[in-house]
């Protein structure tokens, strides 16, 4: 199992009800797998998983990427700064 840290921002944080979580995941889990797990474990997040942006260690990541151990994973909607 791999230990990872999750960070939530903006609408995703509001739905998760928390800014961050730590969890253990299987060593070969992909971003898609992580989304599926979050949809199951946190039903409030299910709808958000379709359009969420995800980063691994502060770089944008995509469904097929495998989540490395001790990764900092962030989940957020498309950015709206400026």
């Amino acid at each position, binding site marked *: 199992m791999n230990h990872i840290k999750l960070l939530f*921002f*903006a609408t995703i944080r509001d739905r998760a009800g928390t800014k961050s979580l730590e969890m253990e995941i299987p060593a070969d889990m992909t971003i898609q797998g992580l989304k599926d797990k979050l949809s199951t474990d946190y039903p409030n997040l299910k709808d958000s998983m379709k359009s969420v*942006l995800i*980063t691994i260690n502060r770089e*944008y990541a*995509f469904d097929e990427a495998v989540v490395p151990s001790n990764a900092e994973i*962030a989940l957020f909607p498309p950015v*709206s*700064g*400026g």
Partner: protein
Amino acid sequence: MKPSSRPTIFSITESEIDLNDLLAQITLESTGAAAIFTGMVRGETRRGESHDTAYLEYEAYVPMAEAKMKQVADEIREKWPVIEGIAIVQRIGRLYPKTPTVLIACTAAHRDTGVFEAARYGIDRLKEIVPVWKKEVSPSGEFWVEGDYIPKPGE
């Protein structure tokens, strides 16, 4: 000029954006021109659904936002190698109408070598890839402003 002597400033801050100070920090002996973009909180919006705004609440994924600002600066230098100094600053927290919230400034020896285009590119890219979000608070409620850009692999 060695690339190492070209100042690049990027920061997420809760403090007021000081244009005079930032401009001075990216002005070299060889600098003759600066193009600066600032965005402000609009109290009255008339494009799209007309509405008023009491204030905006900005938040950022700070370490990633600063890394992506550096990436925007690197992209600017690659596209416009004559650019001398670059400043990219995003203010966060609760910001009221008329307050500058973001600044992109680029300097160069002359005005006809891309400073305007570089500043324009900078703000466009910031709004695509730098992880900052704003919640709009108005007399009638509050809602998160959502962007629509989906970064591609490698961005």
